[in-house]
């Protein structure tokens, strides 16, 4: 499953989807809103371009690391400190592949997926990565 959504998600549900009889390892990455002195974060996506990019990243990772299943959910909208931003769940035959696949996906997502976040603080607002 690949999804960009305003709604929160259940990591347990994603793990359940990733499990299979061929998988001996499930690795999860959960990104959350860190308190850097901000009040909240606003996330925005170019959904029509982001979804195919995430599909390409998933397919690359599945091929490179022999993954059995990949689940990616990224939230958009207004998120408070501590809320979930992104989940990546990878299953593979063995843990090395699952760890590497999960790492590959989050790094490529951050570099390539057209998604942006803005930190809203008491002193003002700032688009992350846009100096």
């Amino acid at each position, binding site marked *: 499953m690949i999804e960009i959504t305003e709604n929160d998600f259940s990591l347990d549900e994603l793990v359940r989807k990733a499990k299979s009889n061929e998988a001996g390892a499930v690795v999860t990455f959960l*990104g959350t809103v860190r308190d850097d002195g901000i009040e909240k974060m606003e*996330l*925005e*996506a*170019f959904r*029509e*371009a*982001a979804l*195919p990019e995430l599909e390409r990243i998933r397919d690359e990772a599945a091929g490179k690391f022999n993954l059995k299943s990949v689940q990616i959910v*990224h939230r958009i909208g207004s998120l408070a400190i501590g809320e979930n*931003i*992104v989940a990546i769940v990878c299953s593979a035959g063995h843990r090395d592949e699952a760890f590497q696949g999960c790492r590959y996906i*989050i790094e490529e*997502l*951050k*570099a*390539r*997926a*057209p*998604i*942006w*976040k*803005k930190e809203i603080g008491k002193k003002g607002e700032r*688009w*992350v*990565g*846009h*100096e």
Partner: protein
Amino acid sequence: MLIKVRAFASFREILGRERELDMAEGSKVEDLLAELCMSSMRFREAAFDDAGLLRDYVLLMINQKRIDPQQGLQTELQEGDEVAIFPPVAGG
């Protein structure tokens, strides 16, 4: 010909989420950007430096495909094309 412009993040705040521009046949991406500069001084300042060069944090897509920020400006637009303008991505 009608060209749809979509802007995201900081450029959405300047240009609005979406607009349609009626461009002359044969117009290039750089003509579209010039048109946007004419309509918004804020956009001109955000997207171009003092020498008139596109700033390197301005990213462009045509029909959801990234174009080279320099050579891509010469790309000829076609009726119905969708041009997206956005800053560097920062998801995750």
